[in-house]
């Protein structure tokens, strides 16, 4: 693969990481402003270098683009091998975009260890871009594991009261899952003599081998998504994480789990994927229905949104295992939309938390009286969370449900319950927090959004609406890659 003129992917990885290092070096607690501005400049630069990935992207091919390949550890044939296709490219952009928002969101809310906080997000951003762009399994693994560290620190240092429990739970859960994946990588290396993903795509494998490998990959990715029943770390992690941590966790890191399904499991193990589709679909539907009910009874806004995330990610895994273009494109659209919507929802909770230092639903009521602008934004994002048309939340749900009807009516039936459940838990929360008379003196003392918060939420509102009204620019990018992936998965490897 010929290297492109400008190594955009390397820039997408290393600009934020180096910016993070710069923030660490330059930032002192006494001079937090410098850390903030350096971080913002780094995040902005990190986002700008990803824009050519979209504008120069060739949507007519499923080949890997913007490729870079250098030797890294020749003894094991490990390469620094990067490239994106229509499936991964949008997530690099989404991640860099989210990093920009998160740095901006933490502007004055974070008062201790500002430099470290900002640096953690910047470094994590680079690592996540690395995971989305890696075409070498070991390179992927390094990024995949390394990104745990900043997140661990973000929760463990800037988190709430039970932050240590939550951080350790998060770390152990995801670490244990990914160890099995490493075993699978080593096995595949022995079989193929290469760590290149593209070699593994065409590697013939017996069905029982595929099933074992499926189990190993599944352990890593299902935890990350997270799928029922390995989801319980997420509702514990969110309430303890600071706002920015929740945003990245929900908007980006969950997506890496789902990305693993399309990048590893489906193309490397097509036969096992078909054989075990029923299993994945069943777990996905449990996520949609069971978790939907669980979300209904949550008393903490962050836990509620965490459960709602699990439920929404159920649509993603469901969409992939329907093996149809609408299903897979719906799943990818759902991933992007959830990036916007969950980020927005957690930012909204953060706005309230910054003012009242609580995210318990019962502590609020009648916020619309004192924060009308904020109430309008929360309404928009709540409707997006409930999958209302003309918001991004609709696109994925709609396409996945349509694909599911074609696959099996009853699967669609169960998936479509989210129309009712999603509306119920989201709007019931809205009713209790935003509507009503002013509930207490704390709510009466609330001040509406400041300029920074307003434009932060307005940016996400624009993203949510643009994608809802015109998803074509998003879906056209993925189309050829998805079609070719499905054609590849349809062919047996036995």
């Amino acid at each position, binding site marked *: 693969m010929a290297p492109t003129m400008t190594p955009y992917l390397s820039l997408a990885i290393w600009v934020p990481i180096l910016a993070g290092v710069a923030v660490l070096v330059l930032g002192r607690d006494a001079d937090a402003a410098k850390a903030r501005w350096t971080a913002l400049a780094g995040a902005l630069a990190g986002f700008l270098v990803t824009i050519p990935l979209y504008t120069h992207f060739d949507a007519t091919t499923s080949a890997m683009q913007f490729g870079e390949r250098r030797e890294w550890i020749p003894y094991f044939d490990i390469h620094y091998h990067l490239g994106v296709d229509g499936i991964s490219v949008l997530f690099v952009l989404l991640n860099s975009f989210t990093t920009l928002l998160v740095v901006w969101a933490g502007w004055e809310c974070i008062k201790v260890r500002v430099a470290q906080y900002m640096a953690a997000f910047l470094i994590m951003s680079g690592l996540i871009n690395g995971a989305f762009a890696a075409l070498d399994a070991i390179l992927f693994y390094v990024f995949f594991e390394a990104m745990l560290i900043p997140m661990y620190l973000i929760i463990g240092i800037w988190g709430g009261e039970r932050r240590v429990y939550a951080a350790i739970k998060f770390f152990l859960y995801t670490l244990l899952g990914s160890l099995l994946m490493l075993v699978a990588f080593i096995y595949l290396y022995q079989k193929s003599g290469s760590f290149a993903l593209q070699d593994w795509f065409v590697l013939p494998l017996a069905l029982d081998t595929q099933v074992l490998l499926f189990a190993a990959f599944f352990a890593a990715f299902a935890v990350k998504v997270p799928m029922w029943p390995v989801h319980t770390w997420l509702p514990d992690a969110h309430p303890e994480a600071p706002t920015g941590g929740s945003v990245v966790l929900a908007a980006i890191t969950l997506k890496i789990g789902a990305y693993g399904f399309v990048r590893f499991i489906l193309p490397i193990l097509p036969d096992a994927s078909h054989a075990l589709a029923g299993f994945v679909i069943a777990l996905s539907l449990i996520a949609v229905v069971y978790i939907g009910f669980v979300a209904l009874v949550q008393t903490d806004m962050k836990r509620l949104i965490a459960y709602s995330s699990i439920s929404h990610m159920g649509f993603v895994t469901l969409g992939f295992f329907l093996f149809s273009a609408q299903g897979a494109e719906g799943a990818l659209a759902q991933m992007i939309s959830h990036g916007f919507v969950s980020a927005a929802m957690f930012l909204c909770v953060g706005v309230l938390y910054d003012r009242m230092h609580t995210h318990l639903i019962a502590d609020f009521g009648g916020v619309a009286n004192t924060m009308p602008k904020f109430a309008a934004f929360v309404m928009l994002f709540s409707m997006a969370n409930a999958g209302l048309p003309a918001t991004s939340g609709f696109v994925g749900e709609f396409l996945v449900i349509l694909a599911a009807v074609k696959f099996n009516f009853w699967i669609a039936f169960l998936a479509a319950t989210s129309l009712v459940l999603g509306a*119920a838990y989201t709007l019931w929360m809205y009713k209790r927090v935003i509507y009503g008379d002013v509930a207490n003196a704390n709510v009466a003392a609330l001040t509406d959004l400041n300029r920074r918060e307003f434009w932060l939420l307005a940016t996400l509102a624009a993203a949510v609406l643009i994608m809802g009204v015109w998803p074509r620019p998003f879906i056209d990018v993925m189309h050829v890659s998805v079609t070719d992936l499905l054609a590849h998965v349809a062919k047996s490897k036995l």
Partner: protein
Amino acid sequence: MTMQQLYLLVPTVPLVASIVVGLWGRHLPRAAAHWITTLAVAVSFVASAVIYRDVMAGNTFNGDVYTWAVTGGVKMAIGFLIDPLTAIMLIVVTFVSLMVHVYTIGYMADDDGYARFFSYICLFTFSMLMLVMSNNFLQLFFGWEAVGLVSYLLIGFWFRRPTAIYANLKAFLANRVGDFGFILGIGLVLAWAGSLDYAEVFAKAPSLAGATIDLWGSAEWSLLTVTCICLFVGAMGKSAQVPLHVWLPDSMEGPTPISALIHAATMVTAGIFMVARMSPLFELSDTALSVVTVIGATGALFLGILGIVQNDIKRVVAYSTLSQLGYMTVALGVSAYPAAIFHLMTHAFFKALLFLGAGSVIIAMHHEQDLRRMGGLRRYMPVTYWTMLIGSLALCGVPPFAGFFSKDAIIEAAHLAGIAGHTYAYWAVTAGVFVTAFYTFRMMFLAFHGAPRFEAGGHAGHGHDDHHAGPPRESPWVVTAPLVLLAIPSVYTGWTYIEPMLLGDFFGNSIVVRPEHRALWEFKNEWHGVGAFVQHGVLSLPFWLAIGGIAAAWYLYIAKPELPARIAARLSGLQTVLVNNYYFDAFNAWFFAGGARRIGGLFAHVGDGKVIEGIVNGSARLVGWTAALLRQLQSGYVYQYAFTMIIGLFALLTWWVIR
């Protein structure tokens, strides 16, 4: 300006106005808020009128505006279908909306959320226009949900009232249950037709008449029956059919102008419009049509009966809306789609009139809505009285008012139909005429006739400012002018439209009726003109039932006003059932709302809490030393340590790369 540009203008002008007023409303003078939105809707109305003339001249249009997405070989687009069915809906929606905009200037004059209210109703107009102009299922669903959203926002407009925010959540969720069926129906359409475009789907439908689908066991289900029933579930939510009707009476918590616009004239008729639009599909499934007929008939009679026991003036009108929606649904079920749309149109005028009239009474009564504390208002507010009387006579089906023609057409169609369930429907809608006349004139007599039962010196308990005090007086012209303008079509649209719509070929290709579904064909054969229809009408049972209903109301509420209480006491069991709306609300609150919370609690505390967390934490204890080790690291220097590690890692990486 080309016609295409005009089509685009119709929905976009209200959208832009809504956005402008919504975003900058609080910085604009109040007058700007109403001028911008009202003028926008007026532009839409004029454009609709031009389109209507153009369509009547034979020009129809079906084309896309832009492609929303292409996936799996299916093009999903935003586009317009302009045909007679759309044209008549455009007129109804923009006209009623315009009247409501003008009326709101008076009704909401003192409200804090003035600009917000105008922004919402203008957004509603946009959404409803997108719904009726759609040429495909995607946009239909978009409009469908968007009107639901605005309905939610407006029912909860006074968001400090606990009852309002309960009602709007209930309305949204009940509608979502309908949408749940609707989206499955759309999914089935896409699955078998491979397209979401009306024209393509309708062209393909006949070839699938015999197709079946495996749903349950070995029984084979007709594909089209399942599809149509799923779609109809959507209509049941939006058009408030039993048992999804529960949200509509509660929606009266919203300000009265939106009760008129959304919960009487337009949004709730979206389901009726949708089924009429889908006539090429429903025509292919007799089973689905029977389901439609029976559900419609049940609502027409039994929900109407509930109107008799209501004391809130708006709730009387709300139950009457439920009943009238049942009539329209019966018309759909017996394949008399034109009769359904005809009644939709006349109902939109006279029901909007009744709601706005009720609102005028409410203003005059200083926000008192209880009929028991009204009486004798005729003298104080003549315009409201006379216009509401016209609306009431139209609703009861007294000739020559509009409702007589449209309602009688439905009754006759139910009589002439051959579909299973039509006999039940015929008797239900016939008996419904008496019920309708009775509760309507009960309301009229209680509000406008007899001795005043209110304190003329101002209203106790509410503490309104001086502006409100004093005896009831006629509302300002911005309120009464819409009443008059709505009264006019409530009178004349009956005899002018029955010829083209039911006896002629008004709808052309936009509605398909198969010859076997004979109701409409026989209807056409039986009457060749308005005269014959009226002659027959005044000689047949429904007319005399309407007269009887009015007479009964007169007897009970004017002649012998002490009687109703005694009857209620005698029939206290029935009275309790009726006052509790047949216990639908109690059942839903206990079974669905309570049940969902109990299931949620069970899953959360036992499923997640005990079982999954038990396993997880159990395993964690097994490797407790790991946790202990990690806990040691919580020294405050962890971050430095970790960052050093990462930097080391990347130094290594970089070195390998550059080497």
